[in-house]
């Protein structure tokens, strides 16, 4: 079997604060194959964004990557000198950010900020860069691209700005696209347009994608495989079909059940949503055993003292829960 395009092994990101070390990402593993879309889902503070920023060593101080390897096209990105990593960022691995309004520079025209990337990475001259930008703007469904080149971000709508953000990420033909909540800031009909666009592009360009989101609906629609994160660790990874039809981790199950559904009738006698009591633990001094134990309906005494290790329970399906087939190490 060919090695995956990207594999993240034992990634740890810590924030060094006055009060101590916050373990935002604490031993995360996942991999992405060529052309594959991996969805990473989790709630605020689960470490999903920090772990994806860490792939390109983009975590801001006081955060520090404390351990782990990020193997991409045969090299460990965490061990590379900054200069060489700069040649990968935006070229082999590109990012689409959550807020298209703040991820574009307000004082440069669209043409000039997209052109800068091509001049930097590809050493293209002005005319060649402009031709490439025009073809990409066209590809992402922007009408009248020649006019847009001279426009500034404030002249464009939110959906249009996100299309520009996607075109920018695709300029150098990346092998991997990191998209962090790419549609969260958009209205639902515009979100649908952008998701369609991303699905179409990945098919046409054969690129792999890591899609970070809190929206289960979005990953159900977009991802081949899904990784669920909770409090800095991975709970469960499975194919999209398996994760939704046969989730094993109690957190995954509770999360899926707690969402109201548009295809369910709630009229008649009052129905309540199944909820997860309490809230995620602080990561300053995380609990010793399973991070979810305190809120888990199935927790045993052992769960509080044993750290579950992600274990393959079926082909392509791995779980971190000692109640559901995982091994554990005494914490």
């Amino acid at each position: 079997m060919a090695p995956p395009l990207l594999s993240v092994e034992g990634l740890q990101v810590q924030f060094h604060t006055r009060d101590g070390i916050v373990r935002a990402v604490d031993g995360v593993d996942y991999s992405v194959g060529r052309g594959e879309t991996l969805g990473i889902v989790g709630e605020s503070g689960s470490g999903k964004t920090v772990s994806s920023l860490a792939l390109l060593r983009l975590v801001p101080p006081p955060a520090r990557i404390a351990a782990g390897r990020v193997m991409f096209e045969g090299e460990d990105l965490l061990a590379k000198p900054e200069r060489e990593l700069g040649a990968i960022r935006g070229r082999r691995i590109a990012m689409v950010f959550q807020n298209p309004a703040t991820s574009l520079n307000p004082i440069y025209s669209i043409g000039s900020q997209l052109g800068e990337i091509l001049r930097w990475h590809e050493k293209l001259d002005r005319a060649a860069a402009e031709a490439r930008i025009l073809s990409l703007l066209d590809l992402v469904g922007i009408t009248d691209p020649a006019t847009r080149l001279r426009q500034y971000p404030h002249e464009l709508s939110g959906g249009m700005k996100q299309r520009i953000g996607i075109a920018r990420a695709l300029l150098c033909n990346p092998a991997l696209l990191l998209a962090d909540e790419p549609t969260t800031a958009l209205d639902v009909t515009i979100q649908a347009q952008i998701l369609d666009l991303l699905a179409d592009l990945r098919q046409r360009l054969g690129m792999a994608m890591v899609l970070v989101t809190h929206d289960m609906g979005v990953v159900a629609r977009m991802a081949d495989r899904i990784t669920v994160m909770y409090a800095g660790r991975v709970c469960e990874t499975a194919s999209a079909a398996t994760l939704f039809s046969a989730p094993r981790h109690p957190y995954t199950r509770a999360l899926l059940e707690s969402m109201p559904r548009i295809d369910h009738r709630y009229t008649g006698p009052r129905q309540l949503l199944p909820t997860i009591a309490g809230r995620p633990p602080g990561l300053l001094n995380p609990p010793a055993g399973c991070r979810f134990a305190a809120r888990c309906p199935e927790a045993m005494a052992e769960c509080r003292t044993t750290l579950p290790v992600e274990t393959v329970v079926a082909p392509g399906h791995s779980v971190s829960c000692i109640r559901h087939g995982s091994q554990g190490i005494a914490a």
Partner: protein
Amino acid sequence: MSAALLEVENLSKHYPVLRRGILLQRQTAAIRAVDDVSFRLQAGETLGLVGESGCGKTTTARAILNLVTPSSGAVRFEGRDILPVFRKGERSEVLGIRRGLQYVFQDPYLSLNPRWTIGETLREPLRIHWPEREAEWPTRIDALLRMVGLEPQHAWRYPHEFSGGQRQRVGIARALAVEPRLLILDEPVSSLDISVRAQILNLLAELQDGLGLAYLYISHDLSSVRFISTHVAVMYLGKLVEMAPVDALFAAAGHHYTRALLSAIPVPDPGAAQSRIHLQGEVPSALRRPTGCPFHPRCAAALPVCRSEEPALIDIGPGHRLACHNPA
């Protein structure tokens, strides 16, 4: 039909667009943020008001309470015409109405005073509305905190000591302080995480059953609307385009915009064969509002008449009203 708890009739909020001349400024156009909106809400029911950013749902809610001054229209609460009361501004009368109708804001971070303890925050509505019942305040504050799933000792804490979900509980407790009959909930769960969202939605459901409250629930999140609402009204560019009992709306929406909105929601089920309606383009600016049906430039079923004539909101079934020349 029994008298409605809340009746909104032809409510409009227009903002003038002014151009400054040499001496005078002239009004060159008007943005119709809310345009001729009418609906009724019965006691104990929930009307979900949905639509995308800028469709006028929040402005509608604020106009009901005169937080923005409506340009025209009437609002009747428990049979009483309330906008003239706000305009007249007689304090005791205004307070009387506000006691019945309270507002829960979207962002509990911004709507709680960071320098007040939770107890002080909850005391404020009591101080204003129940000055003569000061002896009851402490027990009322304890009861309110319990009602929303917090503990009496939380009264001594400050907002920054709470999570987003707990802060929203405080926002709800504050609104409930003076025993209202109607809560206007403006995106109350949008800023919360999924697992916390379910807790707050359940709390709202239980409070409604326990206290017989009616809700005007404003949201762009249609799955929470489906859960909490008995009726749903859909807005587009300041207009109400469809209104129906919740199950009817989700099963048999008549407006092409409603159908597109419903089909755009990603369902958490990878096997779901969702027939997606691809809406072209984006919501036009309220300044360049299309003639006729405001949705016609994006509508696949638009007829020539849609360009020239604005469809009226008419009854098409029990409780189901629709503004469309060529319904689905």
